[in-house]
């Protein structure tokens, strides 16, 4: 099916004016609504967009003016909340962090963008997937500070260097870009996946934490860090620039040498 902006404009009033400098984008979207579809299909929409538009703007244009049934998650629209992870032209990205100009060749007046749901999690509807297995893996690694004994009256003291040690992995927004880019995760959904390991790393290497051994035991499991095949897809996919593969390697090393 090909729906275009023109064909559906009639009954619901006029479309927003096409801005100067707009190019035409064919947005191909993997659609699936189990309420009515037997299997997934592709829909295409031709819409006007500015090079400075985020891919999320294109999805909103389609949803708001062409097809209200198009379904996806989004919230902050600037790469902080982690709602709108999706496969854009075959790679995992946040729709609000990819600008159209990043996908255009210089001088292009037209381009085609394909958008699919992230892989490895059950699709609920269109680009919206079931996040529960992902969060279950996160919760399983004890992603919180573990301490024993009495708490100090004031703050715990931590040197700037000790704080820096785990800084990279504190940036995680749990968007699932990394985990759902991992070929191991696609075939073995029981694998904890990069994001859960990143969040374990964030505490294992925190000098204030006393739960490293418990977490390392969990990740030494058959579905733990040893599943990682160092393909670096996760690092490429991370919208926060976290060195995901490196973090996983550091956890492996901590297990091998029994030392953090």
């Amino acid at each position, binding site marked *: 099916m090909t729906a275009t902006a023109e064909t559906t404009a009639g009954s619901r009033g006029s479309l927003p004016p096409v801005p100067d400098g707009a190019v035409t984008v064919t947005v191909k979207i993997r659609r699936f609504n189990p309420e009515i579809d037997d299997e997934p299909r592709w829909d295409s929409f031709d819409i006007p967009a500015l090079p400075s538009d985020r891919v999320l703007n294109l999805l909103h244009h389609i949803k708001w003016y062409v097809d*209200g*049934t198009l379904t996806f998650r989004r919230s902050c629209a600037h790469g902080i*909340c982690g709602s709108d992870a999706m496969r854009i032209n075959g790679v995992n990205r946040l729709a609000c962090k990819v*600008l159209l100009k990043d996908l255009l060749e210089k001088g292009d007046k037209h381009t085609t963008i394909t958008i699919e749901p992230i892989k490895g999690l059950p699709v609920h509807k269109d680009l919206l997937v079931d996040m529960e297995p992902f969060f279950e893996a996160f919760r399983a690694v004890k992603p919180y500070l573990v301490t024993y004994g009495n708490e100090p009256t004031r703050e715990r*003291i931590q040197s700037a260097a000790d704080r820096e040690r785990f800084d990279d992995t504190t940036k995680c927004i749990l968007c699932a870009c990394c985990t759902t880019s991992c070929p191991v995760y696609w075939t073995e959904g029981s694998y904890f996946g990069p994001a859960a390991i990143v969040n374990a790393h964030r505490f294992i290497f925190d000098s204030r934490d006393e739960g490293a051994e418990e977490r390392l035991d969990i990740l030494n499991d058959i579905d733990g860090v040893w599943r990682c095949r160092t393909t670096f897809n996760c690092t490429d996919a991370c919208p926060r620039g976290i060195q995901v593969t490196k973090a996983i390697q550091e956890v492996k090393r901590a297990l091998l040498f029994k030392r953090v």
Partner: protein
Amino acid sequence: MQFHKYDVVIIGAGGAGMRAAIESGQRARTAVLTKLYPTRSHTGAAQGGMCAALANVEEDNWEWHTFDTIKGGDYLVDQDAAEIMAKEAIDAVLDLEKMGLPFNRTPEGKIDQRRFGGHTRNHGEAAVRRACYAADRTGHMILQTLYQNCVKHGIEFFNEFYVLDICLTETENGPVCTGAVAYELATGEIHVFQAKSVVFATGGFGKVFKTTSNAHTLTGDGMGIVFRKGLPLEDMEFYQFHPTGLAGLGILLTEGARGEGAILRNASGERFMERYAPTIKDLAPRDIVARSMALEVLEGRGAGPNKDYVLLDCTHLGAEVLETKLPDITEFARTYLAVDPVVEPVPVYPTAHYAMGGIPTNIHGEVLRDNDNVVPGLYAAGECACVSVHGANRLGTNSLLDINVFGRRAGIAAAEYALSRDEHVELPENPAASVEAQVALALSEHGQERVADIRTELQATMDANASVYRTEDTLKTALHDVQALKERYAHISVQDKGKRFNTDLLEAVELGFLLELAEVLVHGALARKESRGGHAREDYPNRDDTNFMRHSMFYKQGEGLAADIRMDFKPVTFTRYKPMERKY
């Protein structure tokens, strides 16, 4: 329809909701109902810091923090509440550190602190280092830390449950809150949650404006629900415009940048804040900086091809400070404007940011039903609430503080109230009826109006007529526009008729709340014929303590979207600070 029974139900899983849940969940059987997955909440977008007079890097005390908060709020702050917030700020920060929050550290390993707008030493002498921070992602760290601790304590979440109504049961002592009604996004099913106490922590409504730092999901649902129940909203005319939004986009660039030394400049490169706030310059409170920027542009000193923004100059801070202390905003400027703050100044303009007003509560988070009485069992905290600690203008960092201090207080109070009741009070008859009717109506064929068109027009008129500067004329235009849009809203069409993740329906419902809250905002702004804090009337440029040193209270009169608004007033609580002229 599904039925659930809990001691405490918390609505919203941002900072305030989760801080409340950590307290309540350890004391009483608690459920958190949230429109979004908890880690998607907009607390995560807060950047700069959370103030507390720890005095880790220089002399400070909570009394100075109290004074700054009251003066910053242009004396519309309830002073008892501000004192509690500033005093409890210290433990609020230490609690977060103990929960695991990775604050930046001083060379001695203590929590580091930086300067922030309006926070001063000794009642305005000079800027003070009071904001505890984690780079420019303090809100992200707070949200993650609170969620991590909810996981630790096994807090029960109902994710993607959109609460559309609360249950009020009439008793001989007035209405009592007995539960909440939610629409489950995954299935379209209606759920009734009976509870002994209910806490609203649903955040703000920035999406009434076009240019805003707020998320798409910040549509004032909690405030709207309360208002529709005939309960009051307080001080809704006071809306904060954050000075440094990315020009044209509204994406937030933290005030922490100026805390680290960044400077605002006009087209000719002049540091214009020296003229408006000679003592603390770029670190004046947000209302003053936002107005100064707007004036620079209005008077032709704006930068850029259309002279419609000013410049945030970070170039002298150096790459290292930007990469280590302000990495996220550096990336935002690069990603969204293709501007590198290391080598060139960033185009900025005020962006709609924060509602000072909201659901009126006392210092325990109990919701007021009029000036003197509470609704037993009903609580609110965070941006959706109005304690009032922010008065007419919130100081930077005080929102992260507010959610922690009053989220905690509301959680404790709600749990203790629930534990003090043996039995649940009976629900009103047919508790789900109004939500079922609302959903059925939205899905029925009753017109061809597009939700996006109405929302776009609403945002355009609010930006043009009810933002940084307002006049009788612009506000009347806004009121007229909003009322006309409400009429059109009665004829909206929702294309998606399905039950499964119907986000088309969700957006339609959200727009209903936005329209009502926009009208309340404009109504209040028209009635307040003075300028105070974030409310600047060009036709009444001065503060008028004789007639307007009072909180506004708004009540919905009648049913339906077209109902009237009744206004009342509530006195401001003073303890030790007399109103003075506000100079920086």
